[in-house]
């Protein structure tokens, strides 16, 4: 479908213009990462989550798939896989919704008002109902652990330093082995 590519471009552009950091995966305009900041006035505030968006072929007639890359503690997000069974996304999707809608309205709404009656993360739902303060505390803990801004942006840096060390390490181990081989 050629003409929907204009739609995809527009949506992506609108997303980028809306000050979202978008990172494409392999230039096909099918999948990309978006950095999503926790909405203010929620315990998620201050955290940054990397969200993987996949646009199906039939986009915009079919809804995009949304998943959290780094861990988030939320009743409606699966902790292991990060996927969101967002009812709005799947069931009531309309071709007139766009990505900015998703990131401006749906996701913040989900984070601000989790739906404990249909939880993917049951423990989180139960905690939220039982002890709101503890729930918020937990959210913050996870946020500190997994959703620091550096976690999102720092990953590539860490990788390079890792490689450096491993290079060093291989050298030294070689020497060591060489040394031992003597006698």
């Amino acid at each position, binding site marked *: 479908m050629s*003409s929907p590519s204009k739609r995809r471009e527009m949506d992506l552009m609108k997303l980028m213009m809306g000050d979202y950091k978008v990172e494409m995966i392999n230039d096909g305009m099918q999948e990309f990462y978006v950095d999503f900041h926790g909405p203010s006035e929620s315990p998620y505030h201050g955290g940054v989550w990397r969200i993987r968006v996949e646009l199906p072929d039939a986009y915009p*007639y079919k809804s995009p798939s949304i998943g959290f890359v780094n861990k988030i503690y939320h009743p409606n997000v699966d902790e292991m*896989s*990060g996927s969101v069974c967002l009812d709005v996304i799947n069931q009531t999707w309309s*071709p007139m919704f766009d990505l900015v809608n998703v990131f401006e309205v749906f996701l913040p709404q989900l984070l601000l008002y989790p739906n404990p009656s249909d939880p993917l993360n049951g423990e989180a739902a139960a905690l939220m109902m039982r002890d709101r303060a503890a729930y918020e505390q937990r959210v913050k803990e996870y946020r500190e652990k997994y959703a620091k801004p550096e*976690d999102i942006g720092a990953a590539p840096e*860490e990788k390079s330093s890792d490689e450096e060390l491993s290079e060093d390490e291989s050298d030294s*181990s070689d020497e060591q082995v060489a040394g031992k081989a003597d006698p």
Partner: protein
Amino acid sequence: MRKAGRTGVRQDQRHHHSRLNEIDENWVLRPSVDQEPNLIQTDLSPPSSPSTSSATESRIEPITVSLLVSNRTPRTRQNFKWVSKNRRAHAVKPKFVKRSELGSPNNEVGSLNSLDSDIGSLSIEQKVNTKQEKGGDEEEGEGRERGWRETIEVSESVEDVDGIFSRLEKFQLGVEEPELSEEQLRINDQLQGDELLAMESIYGDNVFILDRHDGLRSFQIHTHIEAPSGIAITAMLNSSDELQTKIDSSDDFSYSFRVEYLPPILLTCLLPKPYPSHLPPYFAISVRWLDSSKISNLCSKLDSIWREQLGQEVIYQWVEWLQSSSLSHLGFDKEIMLGTCGKRLTGDRRAVSGISSPDVDIPLIKSYNDERHLENFLTNLHECCICFSEYAGTEFIRLPCQHFFCCKCMRTYSDMHIKEGTISKLQCPDTKCGGMVPPALLKRLLGDEEYERWESLMLQKTLDSMSDVAYCPRCETPCIEDEDQHAQCSKCLFSFCTLCRERRHVGIACMTPELKLLILQERQNSSQLKEEQKHREREMINEILSVKEILRDAKQCPSCKMAISRTEGCNKMVCDNCGQYFCYRCNQAIDGYDHFRSGTCDLFPQEVIQEWEERINPRQVLGQIQAELFAAHGQACPNCGQFNAKIGNNNHIFCWACQVHYCYLCKKIVRRSSQHYGPRGCKQHTVG
């Protein structure tokens, strides 16, 4: 001499009048217009000198010839060239045809300016002449005005063009027209012709010219009043004639609405021979949304405009005034009060009001407004809000809920839903609307096949929602199910079991599909079977085999038994057919995620998680493999507790789960490796 002239005129008029009734529908059309431009253009050369009249003298022949021609041969309209342009944009449908646009518009425009100056300068001449006869004029004017006042009939029809013209002729009958010299008549005729051309070039499609046999020009000009920011129209709903004097608005109900386009004001004119030197045109103003008194007001204003500049062409001023100032003159520039008809004032006969009653007028005004909006929409480019491409208005489809989308998008959208079978979601794509898509529109949009599929899906869906409906195996008609899985078809009277769709078997269980398959396959080999029967049973075998194949991979929805196979995602499935949630692993009907917490079924099958992780975090997989390989030497991460293996001799461990580095030896988080490892700190490389 005057008297003779008068009777002469009168007879002519009467004669004309009867003929009008004959050729009611078929107005004679103007001869080819090529002749006219020549006449006009050559007149431009000598502007304001008395010699103009002499200049036109020689050219009078063509005019009179053509007049004579038209007088003598009323039925030779087929010889005349004409280009008609039907404007059906509004309710009023004039029964005569617009004169074609002149062949060389450039010349027209170029000559227009000079025309104006000509007219202006010529009319100065006229004024000089008319001053002498002014005394007579005024008398006539008064007589004429007296003639206008008559009682008005209720609900005059604005559309009745013939009626209006006959009225104009009556006006003419009531007026004593002055006898003029040949020269004066020629001048007037010239001026009239010029003026008409000017009107046509200015107002284009809005001028409708009527050709007549007595050489008098008549036409109708439509003045469209537009209010881009909208104008309010208010109608009082329970006023009646007798309560004219009562201006108590608290008891009355009023209804107000806004429009951007108003039905046009029609100015119908009949130019007498003494126009513009002595007499103004006979005119009538028709408005569908003003009552007679208001229109009379307008008529008086037109009269005063004429009086301000006696002897000059006045049509343009009239039309311009109607266009720009008529509403404000009536005090209607922000809001129009719809009056009522039937006011038994002795009003102006020149006022033709189209008002009848609010229940007729309001829909009329609204529909005119809608038509114009639609016209406007169709001719402009718009952007479709789904695909963001620009198309002309004609490529768009508008739903009853007023939302519009381009044809391509609607088609793709409908096709997709029909292919998927999710016709219940086939509604207005707008986010909050959910308006219905009318079946007629779908029929136009889809191919025949898809439309049929839609129809059958709709029927199926409706019947399925009625749980006790079963289809007769023989004639496929829907039947109502009784108790005990039994149904009888009303059409063919076949009594069958709703479970296995065979003949009713009381007390015996249904035949299993496997057994049925075996029996059928056996029977295929039988020689006693007739060809047709054999073929039918072959079909049944295929059907059973297909179902078997489907069920091999797929699961059945616990409530409607629809076969569903999962392509991707988690184990929480939604049946598209009935909306039931169920677990793909164990096939139970569920509600929410509780089922997946109880322990038996995982929400995500392991393969899916694995795939996801490989895509998201390749290092996780690596880390997990390494953890297994080097399980002996590993340490739980001090930050998140994830077990990570020590790679080789390197004590500097990177936790794939929380992305933190830590030391295998001292089990602490390491932020700066150069500081932590070294002669004084931990050794980075140790064996074991």
